[in-house]
């Protein structure tokens, strides 16, 4: 990481990226920030930030909602087109959803105001002008109004555009976890 200098009163946004890989269950990560603040014993000071996640493998194991698909690959999304994802309310009560965090510079997100018990609603994602020109791995975090204020984070991936020349077959298995530099044969 490049050294960052901030004058008094300035701020900087630090993006922490977390790959859930094949973790399972509750995970806590605590990245450490080292600064030039004066400490009584050392010349540097450390600050910890913390992130927590509850990693799941199968959509059916989450409650009180299921989100399908679990990961959004919006590589083929163009112009003002929207990609839909399904939110199924498994509980016996209606739920309201609040967006906690999403990359506003890249995405627009629409969510149903309320999903009644045992019903489904649709969320929609579309791209901003910057998002259309970019490749990224971001995410959307939502919070429910249930007793536990349950949160869900949906990974959103935008890789290279896929163009298929005449006589070629499209890639069959273009997974959201694929590294962009490894996408041979995809232009």
């Amino acid at each position: 990481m490049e050294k960052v200098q901030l004058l008094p009163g300035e701020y900087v946004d630090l993006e922490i990226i977390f790959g859930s890989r094949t973790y399972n269950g509750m995970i806590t990560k605590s990245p450490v920030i080292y600064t030039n603040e004066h400490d009584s014993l050392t010349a540097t000071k450390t600050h910890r930030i913390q992130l927590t996640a509850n990693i799941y493998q199968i959509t059916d194991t989450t409650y009180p909602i299921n989100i399908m698909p679990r990961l959004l690959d919006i590589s083929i999304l163009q112009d003002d087109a929207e990609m839909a994802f399904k939110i199924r309310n498994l509980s016996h009560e209606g739920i309201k959803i609040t967006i906690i965090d999403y990359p506003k510079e890249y995405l627009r997100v629409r969510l149903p105001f309320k999903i009644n018990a045992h019903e489904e609603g649709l969320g929609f994602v579309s791209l901003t002008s910057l998002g259309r020109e970019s490749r990224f791995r971001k995410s959307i975090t939502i919070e429910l109004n249930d007793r536990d204020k349950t949160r869900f984070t949906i990974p959103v991936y935008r890789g290279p555009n896929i163009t298929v020349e005449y006589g070629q077959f499209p890639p069959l298995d273009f997974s959201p976890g694929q590294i962009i530099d490894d996408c041979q044969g995809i232009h």
Partner: protein
Amino acid sequence: MNSKSKYIVIFTILTIPLIFIFSCGDNPVSSKVKPLPSVNGPGLYIPDSTFDFGYVPQNGTVSHEYRLYSVGDDTLKILDIRPG
């Protein structure tokens, strides 16, 4: 009390609670701005240093931005960040 005075009293009674509601309610600006501490020398302040992603699917990449403020009276240098 004449009718003009009555109107003034009624207006005052109705207005004071409204002022109270708007100043203490869920105002998106006033409720989110936290006072920044002041520090001698360089100082780092992270208002929201923890974030809960909640449910995250396997093999996904998620991200969150933390805002770091320089609150001292000297230049703050962020020397390194290491995953923990």
